[in-house]
């Protein structure tokens, strides 16, 4: 059993960064995630593990610090909230192109624009469809608890280095701010410089003696070479789609109806499941843990099993529902319900929507 603590989601993420052997965190304050950098600064991680923490001048600078640091083979991480993540899209696109591993956590708030500082899930499109310019995808993990805010940090780094890609952790202001019991994993030692050099031959940390120097770039002025590079990226994304889908199913075995929800909405919907069962309505919950790659197979299986309808519950105007519809292909009913702009739906509202939009008369 690991160490038990009562923590905010943002604090758990920060503590997990230290324990995951992160080499550098480069961040910029923004509500509702500022506790991440505050916690890190207070913890003096440089004394604990040698981890560097730096407050950058902007989110633009912090994501580019990740480019520099990640390009040397070190474990680098940042966190922000929606408006700050928008500023990072340029850097994420470059890093996808240059294949640089890093982890970026988005504690989503209401939008568009400056929006508000309340929880939202309206950054789904930006997270799973690429976000910046060019053809790329990023693995996206969606924690639904403070525990997962911690657990998904080392998991994200595993994916980031396995596939040489930025990985997003997409939570929201609710997960970031709420306190829960969390079991912390034991500290994973940071790699030594020698281990980094031996493990990541692509990294630019000084030309090895007697070997070719390394270049990290997203540029190729020859369109045929750039197309070839894109083929390589697409192959990688195909492999991720095949091997990295993660999801959780609750009460789906006998369910007539399925709620599909991630993060905070999944937590809220669990209560809806209970309320529905009390009324004799058999509802199950499919919780995507990876938003990209999207869990298409379990949805397909549920369709084939004959479920009567899916309700996508998101704190947005309906974004994930598009991916559900692409999977269901009108074989059964798919509807969306969600409050947004920082408003959180209640379990009762979700049940009401299920009755009105899916079950009908």
């Amino acid at each position: 059993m690991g160490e038990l603590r009562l923590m905010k989601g943002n604090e758990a993420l920060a503590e997990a960064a230290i324990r995951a052997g992160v080499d550098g965190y480069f961040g910029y304050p923004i509500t509702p995630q500022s506790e991440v950098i505050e916690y890190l600064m207070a913890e003096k991680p440089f004394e604990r593990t040698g981890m560097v923490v730096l407050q950058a001048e902007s989110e633009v600078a912090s994501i580019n610090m990740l480019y520099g640091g990640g390009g040397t083979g070190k474990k680098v991480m940042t966190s922000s909230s929606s408006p700050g993540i928008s500023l990072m899209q340029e850097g994420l696109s470059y890093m996808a192109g240059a294949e640089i591993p890093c982890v970026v956590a988005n504690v989503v708030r209401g939008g568009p624009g400056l929006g508000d500082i309340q929880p939202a899930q309206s950054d789904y499109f930006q997270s799973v469809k690429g976000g910046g310019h060019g053809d790329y995808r990023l693995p996206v993990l969606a924690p639904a608890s403070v525990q997962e805010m911690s657990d998904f940090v080392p998991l994200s780094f595993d994916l980031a280095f396995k596939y040489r890609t930025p990985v997003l952790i997409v939570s929201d202001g609710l997960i970031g701010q709420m306190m829960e019991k969390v079991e912390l994993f034991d500290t994973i030692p940071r790699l030594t410089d020698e281990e980094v050099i031996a493990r990541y031959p692509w990294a630019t940390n000084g030309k090895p003696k007697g070997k070719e120097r390394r270049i990290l770039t997203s540029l190729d002025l020859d369109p045929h070479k750039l197309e070839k590079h894109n083929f390589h990226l697409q192959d990688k994304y195909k492999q991720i789609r095949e091997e990295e889908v993660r999801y959780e199913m609750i009460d789906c075995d006998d369910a007539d109806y399925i709620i599909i929800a991630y993060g905070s909405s999944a937590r809220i919907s669990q209560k809806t499941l209970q309320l529905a069962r009390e009324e004799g309505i058999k509802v199950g919950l499919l919780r995507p843990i990876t938003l990209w790659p999207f869990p298409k197979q379990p949805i397909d299986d549920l369709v084939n099993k004959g479920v009567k309808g899916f309700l996508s519950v998101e704190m947005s105007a309906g974004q994930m529902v598009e991916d559900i519809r692409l999977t269901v292909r009108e074989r059964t009913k798919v509807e969306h319900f969600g409050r947004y702009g920082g408003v959180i739906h209640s379990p009762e509202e979700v049940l009401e929507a299920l009755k009105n939009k899916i079950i009908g008369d």
Partner: protein
Amino acid sequence: MAEITLQDIIKPENQVYVKTKLMTDKNLSYCPGCGHGTAHRLIMEVVEELGQENDAIGIAPVGCSVLAYEFMNVDMQEAAHGRAPALATAVKRLWPNKLVFSYQGDGDLAAIGTAETIHACNRGEQIVMVFINNGIYGMTGGQMAPTTLPGMKTSTSPYGRDLQSMGNPLKMTELVAQLPGTYYVTRQAVHTPSAVRKAKRCIRKAFQNQLDGKPGVSFIEIVSNCNSGWKMEPVASNIWMEENMFPYYELGDLKVDGQLVEKK
């Protein structure tokens, strides 16, 4: 007497100049007469002479020198436009024993990357920043730069830079010299043999500062020509540079060993 062949002449003892092995054999993508190639070579000569070939990490910009990584034969990263100092910051923080430098033009360092430049300098990152100032956006076809001189014609100031509507040329080097985080700030040129020798001494000093762990940024501006962007022949562009750029961007040290140089 046997005939002397070319092979007899190209003997190590006869060579007065050898290209540093830290410049690749790729043809430079620069226009004939441009200063970029010389600046690249000086940096690589210094890295080689300091024995830092295996410890140097360079950050390339966006602009004419976007392909700098093709020519400088050390580990290199290609940054987004303006962001090189942010990349260099993290590389140096995570690898304090490595020799880290960034290379940027005026649009990159003094316009889109102003924030990254100022803050890397203000934090006192232990890096070398090389700034090529030719007063114009060369790669995109000769548009106005933050450093374009008053009245200077470019494709986006076709009637000359009008200070009232287009703002003033930015003296970035004077600006960063004022920041406590810079340790060495100098402005040089590479258009004559003597200027090249002087510029090389300054580049060596900058890299030596980093090796010696001196606190702060070593910042080298190189005022250079852009004969194609300025629409002049190379020699004419160098004369124009001496007559117009140098009075505005005065050559010499601005800050040495953390101390501002008193103007005489």
